[in-house]
């Protein structure tokens, strides 16, 4: 599977509610259109909530994969409206 190469990586492992979500959204806001953000997270609620809220902000979820246990890796394409 060919995969988009991330322009930026955000590690929010260990962070509590709602920091994983907030950090992801703020980082995406600062990125250019089409840039790809890689998010590493281990908080189950955010793993489900981030994809739900990305759409509302216009960003595109490329993949969300489970690594091991609660650890997840997401690739998100920013829509670039600063």
């Amino acid at each position, binding site marked *: 599977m060919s995969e988009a190469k991330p322009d930026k990586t955000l590690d929010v*492992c*260990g962070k509590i*509610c709602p920091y994983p979500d907030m950090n992801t959204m703020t980082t995406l806001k600062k990125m250019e259109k089409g840039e790809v953000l890689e998010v590493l997270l281990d*908080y189950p*609620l955010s793993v489900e*909530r981030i994809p739900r809220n990305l759409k509302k902000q216009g960003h595109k979820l490329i993949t969300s994969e489970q690594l*091991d*246990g609660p*650890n997840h890796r997401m690739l998100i394409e920013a829509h670039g409206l600063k």
Partner: protein
Amino acid sequence: MEAVMTGLFVGLIFGFVLQRGRFCMNSAFRDAILLKDNVLLKTVFAALLVELVGFAIMDGAGAIAINPKPLWWGANLLGSFIFGVGMVLAGGCASGVTYRFGEGMVGAMTAVLGLAVFGFFTAGGFLKPFKDSLQTGTTITAADGSALTLHGLLGLDYTLVALILFAIALVVWFLIGRKEEFEADPGWGWLNTGILIGFIGIISFPLSASAGRNYPLGITAGWINILQVIFKGAAFNWLGLMIIGVVVGGLIAALISKEFKFRVPKPLMLLQTFIGGALMGFGAVTSGGCNIGHLLSGIPQLSLGSILAGLSIVLGAWAASYVIFVLPQKKG
């Protein structure tokens, strides 16, 4: 089997459902304004409605005798507002940090420590005089000295008022609530989680009552009981055992779904969740209940004190979310 042991059983199911259902009132209130995401808020409403009808039928049939909390307007307003601020700092409500303890989140463990210790000091330590004077100074009771309730104000039977409210809520639901759809539902689906939590609330009432504690679910007083067991040689009560059940139930659910992991945030974050927990413990004991004792268990009993406390928790959570998360974004 001793009657208190049913607390452990109820707690195990409660913890399991909380973890799998991702139930968190802190997220519910905060997400509604911060992310315009109201899925969890709907779960809370669903649970409240199930309890409302369950309590109404059980009380009408004589299986339970509802025991609404009194109205201490000053203590309810101040205590619950502080509780609401605290849960934002702690990253979870009283039930949220309790089940996440079982998930291995160290930030939740420090929050629980703050909650238990400051709840303990407010219930029987150096903060007790302040709490007592605020509660007695702002008490308003019904003419016969009983707790003020919605049905009491109307002069009507509890079961009747509860069933009417339930019917009104269903009508509102069918008119406006049904249209919204969600592409990715958290956990088991918001409605299933809400109904399950409502049923746990319903079964908890008679079981806890038969152990001598005539009230449905709670959290804060259970943690205080655990400290009393450890430091004062007290016996476990129904709620203390229920808390142990919630932690273990959350742990089992996290292990089954492979979501268990020791997650250690930065020291500053641990301090923040401890302070948040401490504010929650002080606030909950001052107000006479946390998000579970007042919001989930008290509102369906139509206690005016619980309704006021519930609103104040939401206001506190919104105020803190605004200051912590919205203002910094506006500046930067």
